[in-house]
């Protein structure tokens, strides 16, 4: 063994040997990985298999695609999906706002760290807290409207959460408020790591603030912005339960104005006692996220780097 170590490439030899001659005082990777693997297989593997089974059954009986046709024709499910779809409109807004915030922070010398902490702060706050506080803030006679009235723009003092046509957009505004900090930090980190020479060269050539950042910075930030867009799309499709649950007392109200797919699943399973429908809707949701995951991998490939090429 020692002989082969000396003759072979030292960077790969020990690892290969460790795997091949696992018995030689070396245990190999298996015992190291096993506990985590078992846990992941139980939580994800078992669950996903069970989910598929449940969505083809009704009270233990195989019913083929009946659950699927029930779910996709359920008006509430369609409403829920359409709300998730509408929330996707927040994604481009988030991308633009994050990019602008990041550029602003990048160009700021004085107090950059302070502003950065402030912008990022909403992202770490618990959604239940955000939901409760915004719920108070946006009451018909709440703090926001009293400020708007004091400023004389009475017309803007809407019933933010109580008006069915309004509630979902208010919700997406709150999600934007929270998520924009994440994008800003992500893009800013990439911006700082860009080579300074190109920026300086463009500046010397007389490129102004807007030209500089739209023509020189933006193209270089494309991978990270794309990553952020996909990440936020996943959030809008499948991670907004907390906002809706907290701000509407678990009802998705007013009426069904803020029911989203996650709430549909939760309510089908635990309030309407029809777990098969919930399982079927969950499976459809999983398939929807899968599409985004594929996009996710595509980006990683296009980033011209492997996962671990440090």
């Amino acid at each position, binding site marked *: 063994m020692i002989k082969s170590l000396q003759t072979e490439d030292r960077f790969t030899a020990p690892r290969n040997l460790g795997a091949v001659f696992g018995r030689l005082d070396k245990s190999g990777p298996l015992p190291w990985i096993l506990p985590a693997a078992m846990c992941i297989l*139980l939580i994800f593997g078992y*669950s996903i298999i069970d989910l598929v089974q449940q969505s083809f059954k009704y009270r233990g009986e195989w019913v083929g695609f009946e659950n699927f046709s029930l779910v996709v024709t359920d008006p509430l499910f369609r409403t829920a999906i359409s709300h998730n779809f509408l929330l996707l409109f927040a994604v481009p807004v988030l991308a633009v706002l994050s990019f602008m915030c990041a550029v602003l922070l990048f160009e700021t010398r004085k107090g950059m760290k302070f502003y950065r902490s402030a912008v*990022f702060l909403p992202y770490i706050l618990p959604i239940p807290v955000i939901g409760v506080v915004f719920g108070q803030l946006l009451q018909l006679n709440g703090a926001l409207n009293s400020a708007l009235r004091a400023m004389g723009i009475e017309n803007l003092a809407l019933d933010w959460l109580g008006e069915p046509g309004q509630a979902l957009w208010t919700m997406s505004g709150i999600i934007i408020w929270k998520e924009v900090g994440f994008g800003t930090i992500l893009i800013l980190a990439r911006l700082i790591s860009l080579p300074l020479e190109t920026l300086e060269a463009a500046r010397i050539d007389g490129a102004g603030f807007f030209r500089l950042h739209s023509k020189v910075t933006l193209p270089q930030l494309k991978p990270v912005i794309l990553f952020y867009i996909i990440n936020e799309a996943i959030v809008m499709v499948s991670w907004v339960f907390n906002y809706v649950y907290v701000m509407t007392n678990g009802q998705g109200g007013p009426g069904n104005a803020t029911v989203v797919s996650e709430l549909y699943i939760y309510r089908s399973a635990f309030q309407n006692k029809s*777990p098969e429908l919930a399982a079927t809707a969950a*499976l459809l*949701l999983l398939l929807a996220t899968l599409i985004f995951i594929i996009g996710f991998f595509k980006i990683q490939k296009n980033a011209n780097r492997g*996962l*671990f090429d440090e």
Partner: protein
Amino acid sequence: MSKRYTSIEKTGITSRQLILILITAMAAVPGYLMVTGSLKTQEEFLNSPWSLPMNPNFNGYTAAWNDQFPTWFRNSLFVTLTAVLITIVMAASAAWGFAHWKWKGRDTVLGVLISLMVVPPVVLLIPLFTLGAKLGWISTFRMLILVYIGLMLPFSIYLLTNFFRAIPASLTEAAEIDGASDFRTFRSIVLPLSGPPLITLTIVNLLWAWNELLLALVFLQSDEQKTLMVGITGFQSRYSLSIPTIMAGMTIATLPLFIAYIFGQRYFITGLTAGSVKGE
């Protein structure tokens, strides 16, 4: 420095500062209303929600704390700490298995792990609930902790594997040539070098588990077992006539995070952005 800027550039800088101040204010508004509101009386809050509390009083805090806050707080602390601790140990071990040995299918498994990071918890909810019911584990902390561990593992393994792989092979090989076992190499070479990623990971996981609502809501159904996030969700409707109490409760729930953020900001930022495409 400032002398070198032209006047046009100066206006640019000032306006950018103004925009940043505006953004900061927008980020801070809910926090401001929450903290000032918690120190007012109901009447003061309704009359002038934006003013500073002129005669700060702590009745809201007393009321919130005398409710079940201490219990919820303890529950959250117990669930979060246990789950995160076990996750870190399992993830570090598994990541070493991924980083130290090259085995067939490793990259595929890592790819699957990455895609598991985006599986929404609500998808797993029903099968896990059925499983928990079969085991008689509904309304037990161990069920929730187990689920949390499973959900935190993919990201944790991914992050640590990335880090372990960046450790120069010469270091671990030197130890092996000296006859150190895999365990010894891991414990005395790899772990001492891994302080920052382990802290980052701990903070990110603590943040996630502390803030988690959906699973805690479903798996812990009795009132004494509620976690803080579930507790404050119901708290809102219970105290709908006393906004200062609600705000005080929210402040208490946010405080641990806020303090951690002030001191460990660097770790929050690296951790929460670490899942992104390589090259940050």
